[in-house]
């Protein structure tokens, strides 16, 4: 019995010792931590490195913090990756040591000539020590050994070159074990067209070891029709560990921001590298603004090949009822469309009995007004000013000829805004209060100075009436317009992204508008569905006139410029090109709406077809070939709110540390950030199988549980 007690005592002591060991070790494990920040290793600056120019806007749009190491001018040192408070290099297991990055992205596979074998060792050691993943954007599937004996291999992706090409229909071959972890957002049933130079490879899987003893084991995710790998996961295994010591996602496809396939792949390079835990997020957006509701538009005459002021079109009640039905059909046909709604940017002057009256009255006898109000819950509305008047600067001198009438007082401009708000109330359209903060001026006027020339037909001496415009960033905006907008509490002003300096989400702080706060400019995408067309033949004629015939007519060769076309295009071709363009916009993750005009919603055949819904159907069809993510269709004021939130978050310095032992992230910032999007934390919105949190962060650190969503 005594002896037995002795054994028990020993066991107890051993258990206590083990417990003490765990407790003692715990702080060390607690330092097994990394900052939520990506290291981008490049071969040059953005001006030189195609890969950096590709991934940088993706990271910026998503709001992901990153640091660029330019191997052309900088050396990688261990202390750059993880340093103690004294600034010396440290290891994950050392007390107080926090890794500086939770993911690594290489813009090029072999980083030649800037990266040395020693630097590869430093990078790989960090990846192994802190269990950090690497994503390679492009390049040669290298296997390199030291030139001196014993010729140890220091870089090996486990791939062998098979062929090169610029035209692949790549197939998704994602192994089941990764199905919840990588490319969860793509439509894996469809091939992904690759249109850039790619090196197609085969996995070697031949047990050849790197000098650290690891063996690359390759699993292709995307393959050519001949079964060659274009994109693979490489797991570096050692005999003594069941889990990989290192993991790499490598693409041997050239990626650039102007390739659709690159836009499809972009998210996963970030998601993979960070193991799905990162500051920032991405959503896919699409909104369609139909401008000029209640007004009429002049029409393009295909016989004359020009706009005909004598011929106008204004939507009818039947067009609105048709639009309700087409919108429902769009939602049914496209599972990613959700509850998609058109946004009508309306001009109330066209919906009242007498636009000059001091007290406005809705024109209920107008079947368009009646149909819009009867179906108002099917759509959203935006203030487009009362009469669509120009907000541009008045001419100098005041009596100089001008294509448009201008306002010379803030009061007059304010009236354009407030009278439209009155009509909103008269028609009892939804969400008026929210929308008082948003304004789309007629033709995006007020943000640049067209110098009184906007109508091409009135200026035959000018090849392009926009050529003399004074841009927004060259003092072209009208301060009276901005002051009026500020006075009326407008926070968000629509801009035309095709105009210089209007293709950036930005606070308008370079103009004095008399307010403590600045208006926020929200760009909108243009399309090739013009304001003056209701049917395919008009559109086809105008498009071909713009991009082909007018050059022929003036003795120019349209084939000399990329912007023109070498031969006329059909409606279907124009639509397909525009749909592809729109999908590229969507895959850039920004929220900018596409704008159209009321004519485009006219029913042009007995099936109820409209140019507007032809375009939307083509866009969703193309999108769903590539992606399965639900499309966010936000009201414009909410686009404004989200944009403001993103800009605020981007201007803050966010500190985030992922404690790998507790699997929790501690967040703080140098200022209050009421809405910080973070991917991979418990409790957020589920999107594409991942959790995206909308977190309030300030100077006080707060801790959140990590949830990578791998079981969803």
């Amino acid at each position, binding site marked *: 019995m005594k002896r037995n007690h002795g054994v028990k005592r020993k066991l107890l002591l051993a258990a206590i010792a083990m417990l003490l060991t765990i407790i003692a070790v715990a702080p060390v494990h607690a330092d097994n931590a990394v900052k939520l920040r990506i290291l981008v290793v490049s*071969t*040059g600056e*953005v*001006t*030189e*490195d*195609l890969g950096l*120019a590709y991934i940088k806007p993706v990271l910026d749009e998503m709001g992901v913090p990153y640091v660029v190491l330019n191997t052309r001018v900088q050396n990688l040192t261990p202390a750059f990756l993880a340093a103690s408070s004294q600034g010396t290099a440290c290891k994950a297991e050392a007390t107080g040591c926090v890794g500086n990055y939770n993911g690594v992205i290489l813009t*090029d596979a*072999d980083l*030649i*000539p800037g990266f040395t074998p020693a630097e590869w060792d430093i990078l790989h050691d960090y990846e192994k020590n802190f269990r950090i993943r690497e994503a390679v954007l492009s*390049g*040669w599937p*290298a*296997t*390199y*050994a030291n*030139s001196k004996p014993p010729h140890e291999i220091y870089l090996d992706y486990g791939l062998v*070159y098979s062929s*090169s090409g*610029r*035209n692949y*229909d790549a197939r998704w071959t994602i192994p089941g074990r990764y199905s919840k972890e990588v490319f969860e957002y793509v439509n894996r049933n469809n*091939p992904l*067209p690759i*249109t*850039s*130079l790619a*090196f197609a490879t085969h996995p070697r899987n031949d047990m050849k070891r790197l000098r650290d003893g690891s063996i690359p084991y390759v699993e292709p995710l995307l393959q050519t029709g001949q079964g060659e790998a274009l994109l693979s996961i490489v797991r570096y295994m050692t005999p003594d560990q069941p889990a990989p010591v290192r993991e790499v996602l490598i693409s041997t496809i*050239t990626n*650039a*921001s*102007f*390739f*659709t396939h690159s836009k499809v792949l972009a998210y996963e390079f970030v998601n993979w590298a960070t193991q799905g835990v990162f500051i920032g997020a991405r959503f896919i957006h699409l909104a369609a603004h139909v401008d000029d509701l209640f007004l009429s538009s002049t029409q393009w005459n295909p016989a004359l090949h020009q706009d005909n002021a004598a011929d106008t079109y204004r939507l009818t009640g039947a067009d609105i009822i048709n639009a309700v039905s087409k919108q429902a059909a769009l939602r049914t046909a496209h599972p990613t469309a959700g509850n998609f709604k058109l946004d009508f940017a309306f001009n109330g002057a066209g919906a009242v009995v007498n636009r000059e009256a001091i007290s406005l009255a809705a024109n209920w006898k107008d079947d368009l007004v009646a149909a819009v109000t009867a179906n108002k819950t099917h759509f959203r509305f935006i203030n487009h000013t009362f009469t669509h008047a120009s907000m541009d600067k008045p001419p100098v001198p005041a009596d100089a000829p001008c294509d448009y009438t201008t306002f010379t007082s803030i009061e007059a401009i304010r009236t354009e805004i407030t009278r439209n708000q009155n009509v909103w109330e008269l028609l009892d359209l939804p969400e008026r209060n929210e929308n008082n903060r948003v304004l789309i001026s007629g033709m995006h006027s007020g943000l640049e100075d067209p110098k009184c020339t906007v109508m091409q037909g009135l200026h035959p001496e000018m090849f392009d009436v926009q050529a003399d415009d004074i841009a927004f960033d060259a003092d072209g905006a009208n301060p009276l317009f901005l002051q009026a907008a500020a006075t009326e509490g407008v926070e968000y002003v629509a801009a035309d992204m095709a105009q210089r300096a209007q293709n950036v989400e930005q606070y308008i702080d370079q103009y004095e508008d008399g307010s403590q706060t600045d208006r926020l400019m929200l760009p909108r995408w243009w399309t090739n569905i013009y304001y003056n067309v209701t049917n395919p033949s008009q559109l086809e004629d105008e498009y071909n006139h713009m991009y082909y015939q007018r050059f022929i007519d003036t003795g120019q060769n349209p*084939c*000399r*410029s*990329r*912007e023109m*076309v*070498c*031969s*006329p*295009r*059909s409606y*279907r*071709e124009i639509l*397909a*090109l525009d749909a*592809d*363009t729109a999908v*590229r916009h969507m895959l850039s993750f920004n929220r900018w709406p596409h704008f159209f005009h009321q004519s485009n919603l006219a029913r042009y055949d007995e099936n109820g077809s409209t140019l507007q819904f032809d375009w939307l159907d083509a866009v969703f069809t193309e999108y769903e070939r590539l992606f399965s993510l639900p499309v966010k269709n936000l009201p414009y004021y909410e686009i404004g709110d989200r944009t403001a939130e993103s800009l605020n978050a981007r201007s803050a310095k966010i500190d985030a540390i992922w404690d790998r032992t507790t699997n929790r992230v501690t967040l703080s910032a140098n200022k209050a950030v009421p809405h910080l999007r973070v991917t991979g934390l418990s409790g957020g919105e589920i999107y594409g199988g991942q959790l995206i949190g909308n977190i309030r962060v300030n100077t006080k650190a707060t801790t959140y549980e990590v949830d990578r969503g791998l079981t969803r």
Partner: protein
Amino acid sequence: MNVGEIQSFVSSQEEPGGIPGINGIRLSAILLSLLLVFSFPGTGGAADLTNAAAEKTDETAKTSRQMEDETRKKILQANDFKLRGHESLFPEQAKSLAKGYRETAKMIVEQGCDPKPVLDAAAYFEKQSGRSER
């Protein structure tokens, strides 16, 4: 979209590296259809005819899908080409890429392997760096 439209579209796009063969696909479809028509056995009965018709429908659908894919790729390439033109930095980036691949080729030779694919890539990007217009 009819075949005429597709042909017109293809002829309007002249980006090097494009896909020839829309005409070839059309020809294949005709030959395939003729082959199916003349391969019907005379004594096979209604079931054989039904099967053959079904096969023909499948083949026609497949051919149509291929044509659609090819057209779609032409559209992608047309937009790639146009958008690349908007990238003012691309010529410099392509030049750097070409230079990088030449350096990689040297390394591949040092490693005792064939540098041809990488030299081809270098030549391709070198050419791209000088191509700002059609």
